[in-house]
């Protein structure tokens, strides 16, 4: 039985930017994320990836270069909500403990 050459664990954090040619210049989209792949012989394999755009750079034909950051307000708000929840739970536990002693 020939076992396939399953790759060992590998990950890649550096993802080259995407390039789109438009009428007003080339648009470069920088991303943040990574790819993880791995496997174990004889027949197990997996692959995961996640990417998010972070910055847009436009290379104009006249040499100008415009940059803009891609905001992620939704994720920021969710992060703040999570922190607020953790803070409320921690404060409640501290108050409860103080009352008991």
């Amino acid at each position, binding site marked *: 039985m020939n076992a396939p050459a399953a790759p060992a664990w590998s990950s890649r954090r550096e993802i080259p930017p995407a390039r*789109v040619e438009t009428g007003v210049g080339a648009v470069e*989209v920088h991303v943040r994320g990574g*790819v993880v792949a791995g496997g174990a012989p004889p027949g197990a394999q997996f692959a995961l*990836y996640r990417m998010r*755009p972070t910055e847009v750079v436009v290379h104009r034909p006249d040499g100008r270069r415009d940059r803009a950051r*891609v905001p992620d307000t*939704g994720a920021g708000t969710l992060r703040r*909500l999570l922190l607020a929840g953790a803070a409320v739970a921690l404060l409640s536990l501290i*108050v409860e403990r103080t*009352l008991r002693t």
Partner: protein
Amino acid sequence: MNNDPVETVRDTLAGTVGRIPSIATAEAVVGPVREENGRIAIPLASVAAGFGLGLGAGHEGGDAADGDDAPAARGSGGGGGGGGGAKARPVAVVELTENELQVHQVVDSTRIAVASLALAGWCVFWITRTIRAFRRR
């Protein structure tokens, strides 16, 4: 040429999953470019995907090299499973003109509303718990 169907399926699926890292490029976050009245719109998305599989095969009674007539009396089998999922969420739209570059963010208000409600419930639970502890005292 491999005639074992289990191995054929395994090789095909393993090849498909193995190719994923090479196709996971930044192009996946960029949507189709639309141009209208001198304005160019490029949608951007956050993407995530995961795939996995496990396959195996075996022969009953051990090694086939035990004897010449032994394999005919033995059974063999194989099986496996796999799964995967992918998610894409719009995060922004790039608006491009001759002189201007603007990035309009796309906020998922439903997600934030649900998270806010969950936080409200969480806070009510902890505050009620603290008040009860205070009353017991």
